[in-house]
């Protein structure tokens, strides 16, 4: 029973983790980044390469991966996204093109074989069932990241500027701050978080160029169903769908688990087209 609870929390955390970067970018810039899966993939490759060259796994995961993918984010924003401000459909398509491009590039450089990273932290046992301790790490990292983003947005100057830009970018410019910088920084942060997510999940998923495709559907659905509130919305959507997914997986099989998640999303969108956030009483972040 406890193991099931941990598994559910783990699935929820995983879903929240892969969606956070996308939620920030979509929530703040109204940009549908279809290269999101590839950002996760690049994070996974970062940790795999850094670690196999001898670097400590934790540094690879928590420093190298987000830094590298954050930089990639800056490049993407400056070269592509910036030219398409306000054109949501075109941004979706252009980032889709980028996703193909990046997948192709990585395939060319690193080949098609799956690389692995051994899962650190070993395992533990409850009631005779073994479970990987790594799952706790994933849950912990997700909580810490959400809390950190909340803190930055609510209590720091840059967070305040970011929230103001969400409200009214032209007034932000009229007060002397270049909204372009805010957007680039936001995209970079979203990318870095996605890179981190990909890196953290890499030991469980393996690393290959096309791994992004598995993430993108779920991340998008979680973000859209979460609605306006970047953190609260994503978290609640992750809770809802993660639970549906894992419970169905435990009772039936993993494929049905995925199907259940998707059907749940479909029903939810029909009931609350503006996302879960619209049912919250107060305007949450």
């Amino acid at each position, binding site marked *: 029973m406890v193991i099931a609870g941990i598994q559910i929390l783990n699935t929820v955390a995983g879903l929240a983790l892969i969606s956070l970067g996308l939620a920030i970018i979509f929530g703040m810039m109204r940009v549908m980044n279809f290269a999101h899966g590839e950002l996760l993939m690049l994070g996974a490759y970062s940790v795999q390469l850094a670690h196999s060259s001898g670097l400590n796994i934790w540094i690879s995961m928590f420093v190298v991966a987000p830094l590298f993918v954050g930089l990639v984010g800056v490049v993407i924003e400056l070269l592509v996204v910036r030219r*398409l401000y306000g054109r949501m459909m075109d941004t979706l*398509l*252009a980032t889709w*093109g980028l996703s193909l491009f990046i*997948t*192709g590039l990585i395939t060319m450089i690193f080949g098609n074989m799956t690389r692995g990273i051994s899962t650190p932290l070993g395992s533990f046992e409850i009631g005779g069932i073994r479970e990987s301790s790594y799952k706790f790490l994933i849950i912990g990292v997700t909580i810490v990241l959400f809390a950190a983003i909340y803190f930055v947005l609510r209590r720091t100057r840059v967070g305040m500027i970011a929230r103001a830009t969400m409200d009214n970018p032209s007034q932000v410019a009229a007060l002397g701050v270049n909204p372009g910088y805010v957007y680039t920084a936001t995209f970079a942060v979203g990318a870095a978080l996605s890179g981190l997510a990909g890196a953290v999940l890499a030991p469980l998923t393996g690393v290959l160029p096309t791994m992004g*495709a598995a993430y993108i*559907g779920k991340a998008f659905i979680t973000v859209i169903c979460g609605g306006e509130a970047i953190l609260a919305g994503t978290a609640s959507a992750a809770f809802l769908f993660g639970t549906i997914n894992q419970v169905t997986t435990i009772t039936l099989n993993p494929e049905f688990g995925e199907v259940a998640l998707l059907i749940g999303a479909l029903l939810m969108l029909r009931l609350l087209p503006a996302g879960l956030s619209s049912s919250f009483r107060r305007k949450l972040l």
Partner: protein
Amino acid sequence: MIGRLSIDGQMLAVVTLSTILLLILPQVFEIDTILQLTLNFSFSILALSLAFVWGYAGIFSFGQAAFFGIGGYAYAATAINLGDSTPAIVAGVLVPTLFAALFGYFVFYARLTKIYVAVITLVMTLILYKFMGQTAKPDYMIGNARLGGYNGIPAVPPINVPGQPHLFAGPDEMFYIAGFSLLAVYVLLRWILGTRFGKVIIGMRENEKRMELLGFDTRLYKLLAFVVAAAVAGFGGVVFTNWNAFIDPHVFQLAFSAQPIIWVMIGGLGTLAGPILGTFILSTLSLELGVQKALDVNLLLGAIFTFFVLLVPQGIIPTVRNLLENREAAASNKTDGTTESRG
């Protein structure tokens, strides 16, 4: 809702030229090319379905490939069970149509905004992929046809002369069937766009509020456009399954669902000829690029597509059209001898 088949010069020219081409080509080209062209015809029908629902009705649907796939599966299951392709073709069109009617009702009567429609059709496609993928166990059958999970349904009987299953289509016949089907779909869609219904949905794409205020139930029109597009896509799936003699869940995969979007965008959103052109160019390009080993095919396609979105967002046909129009305008200005002052 009765439209006249506008037998204007353009349409007649297109039909005549196409017919001539289709009759000549098998004599000229090798079997490989003929097979490739047949495949492209089926893809073009898929592209036209998206061109109609997105380019003219303004509904961005990620699900056209799904209807394509459903049509293919319906055809396969019916053909295997009944042994005659004629009811199978009907099934291949009817099943996706009914599915789209139900699904569309669910979506459009909730008045979901465009981005949600896009996501929801994406979700639907993913569900189908996951679901069909795990039908590997032998108990998943429609009649005598095993669904086969990720392996799909093999040995699908090809189109035969109605009522005579032993007279079935070979590669040349498939070419004609596919080619003329594409032509028929093109003419049909052109005709629909000329009717009152067609004008309403175009008006809806341009300004939904205005159409509503004029008294049109936009939910119904969206649903109808969506259903028509699904029927067309399903038909494309029938042609495809015939060409392939095989259908599997990869048509429900994200990568394939994105293809018609790419074909339509590059060819020209808002036209019918553009997407056909886009399909042919990209399909051929994929093939050629896939053969060479220097650069990864995804890399090249991705670069081309991003380039197009950034710099040629309207697509090939509209851009060419604009260029020609501008050149005409510039030429006539010169001959006039007057320069217009822009106020």
